């Protein structure tokens, strides 16, 4: 019987949650890297036992961790398993250096409108390659994309994004100027989508050498020019691997859709009671079925009326239904962050999300009913799920 493995990154460590295909009995292991912020963890689709982890700290900086046994044991690539001739741990993994030779380190817009230098802070998102377990992409703050082709031992920036020209107009969102979303096209290895808060969405069609903004159709009231090429606070982008090129976006406000690989967007918020939110995802088998977790507003980061609801559209947007069975419907004031929703690929598609209140919920029936896997973790920053044979 198939199994699922849920990878939950939290404010104070990483957790691995496993179950069989019924998804009703769960084993919980962790915390791993206790006390550290785990912004994201994700397994390789090529080798599911290879898991990459972003471990970070305002005190100590950025560490990358890996597992080669599905999360039982971990190592900092090059720092844990390999030994120097003296017998010491060798290597390092936490060095992210902007390629200033290829793209000079310029400035971006600061909160007050002045220009501010680019400074590396942390890795928000890790996206393993679809074809090579040793290749992984990292989205970082201040916004840039890096790639490792040696299992996270070393990292090189793809400088064409940061240096493509609109950088001075990018500005940080409340969480910082982070590149938080990386979507790989399964049919075209040269096509990658990324999103930056608050700059917008960008696409490369040549494997990361050159990039262009793909924000036409986005409107942001906080911009002097609401339709500006960049400056939009895109919160997350989701794409069904079954249908590359059809994208769904949770923007700061507005749920958006693109049918042309991001060249243009139109709003599909429809009957949502609030279209502010962070997370968005697509059903594994039904590419027109999408999920969002609406949040009251950009200053009240909790569900409307204290009722936690996932909303589902089976029509690719505009027509939404609230999913509440098993979710708290009173006195609930948690948030669902951008990387904290995921879907498995079992026949009955499972939907998962984590909250800042420490719950991780699963729906084994595509959203019709929900149950908590765990209730009391630290604030959940990210949730990914692996479907295993």
């Amino acid at each position: 019987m198939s199994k699922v493995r849920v990878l939950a990154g939290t404010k104070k460590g990483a957790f691995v949650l496993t179950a069989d295909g019924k998804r009703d009995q769960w084993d919980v292991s962790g915390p791993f890297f206790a006390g550290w912020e785990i912004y994201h963890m994700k397994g390789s689709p090529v080798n599911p036992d290879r898991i990459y982890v972003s471990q970070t700290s305002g005190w100590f900086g950025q560490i990358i961790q890996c597992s080669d046994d599905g999360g039982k044991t971990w190592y900092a690539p090059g720092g844990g398993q390999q030994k120097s001739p003296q017998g010491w741990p060798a290597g390092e993994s936490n060095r992210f250096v902007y390629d200033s030779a290829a793209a000079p380190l310029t400035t971006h817009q600061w909160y007050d409108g002045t220009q501010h230098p680019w400074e590396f802070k942390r890795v928000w998102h890790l996206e393993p390659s679809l074809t090579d377990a040793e290749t992984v992409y990292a989205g970082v703050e201040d916004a840039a994309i890096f790639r490792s082709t040696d299992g996270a031992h070393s990292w090189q920036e793809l400088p064409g994004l940061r240096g493509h020209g609109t950088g001075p107009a990018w500005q940080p969102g409340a969480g910082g100027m982070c590149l938080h979303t990386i979507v790989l096209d399964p049919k075209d290895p040269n096509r990658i989508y990324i999103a930056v808060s608050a700059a917008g969405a960008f696409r490369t069609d040549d494997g990361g050498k050159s990039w262009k903004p793909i924000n036409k159709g986005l409107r942001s009231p906080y911009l002097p020019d609401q339709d500006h090429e960049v400056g939009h606070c895109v919160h997350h982008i989701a794409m069904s691997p079954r249908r590359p090129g059809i994208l769904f976006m949770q923007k700061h406000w507005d749920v958006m859709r693109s049918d042309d690989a991001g060249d243009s967007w139109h709003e599909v918020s429809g009957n949502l009671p609030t279209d502010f939110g962070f997370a968005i995802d697509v059903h594994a088998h039904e590419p027109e079925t999408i999920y969002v977790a609406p949040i009251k507003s950009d200053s009240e980061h909790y569900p409307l009326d204290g009722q936690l609801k996932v909303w589902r559209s089976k029509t690719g947007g505009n027509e939404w239904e609230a999913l509440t069975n098993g979710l708290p419907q009173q006195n609930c004031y948690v948030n669902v962050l951008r990387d904290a929703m995921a879907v498995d690929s079992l026949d009955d598609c499972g939907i998962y999300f984590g909250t800042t209140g420490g719950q991780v919920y699963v729906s084994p029936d595509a959203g019709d009913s929900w149950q908590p896997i765990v209730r009391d973790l630290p604030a959940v920053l990210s949730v990914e799920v692996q479907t295993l044979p």
Partner: protein
Amino acid sequence: MSSPVVRVEIPFHLRTLAQVNGELRLDVPPPVTLRRVVDVLEERYPVLRGTIRDHDTQQRRAFLRFFACQEDISHQSPDDPLPDAVAEGREPLLIVGAIAGG
């Protein structure tokens, strides 16, 4: 002549990261300076590179401080000699994380 053994205490989270317990004892060739101690520390535990000082600028991370013989030496030149008591292993060099934010 063997190098003096310098005792170093690092924060809990860096001990877990480096997979060590308690105080570290490092062979640091003289003259014993802060830079040399951290150089040896990073050479022995490469996973700590970037966690105490920036990879490239070598600047101390903002939320870390260095103490020797109950003195805050964070703002001294990293090339100043450390006190004899630290250089000779009678007192530890303390690398301390700021108490901020829990």
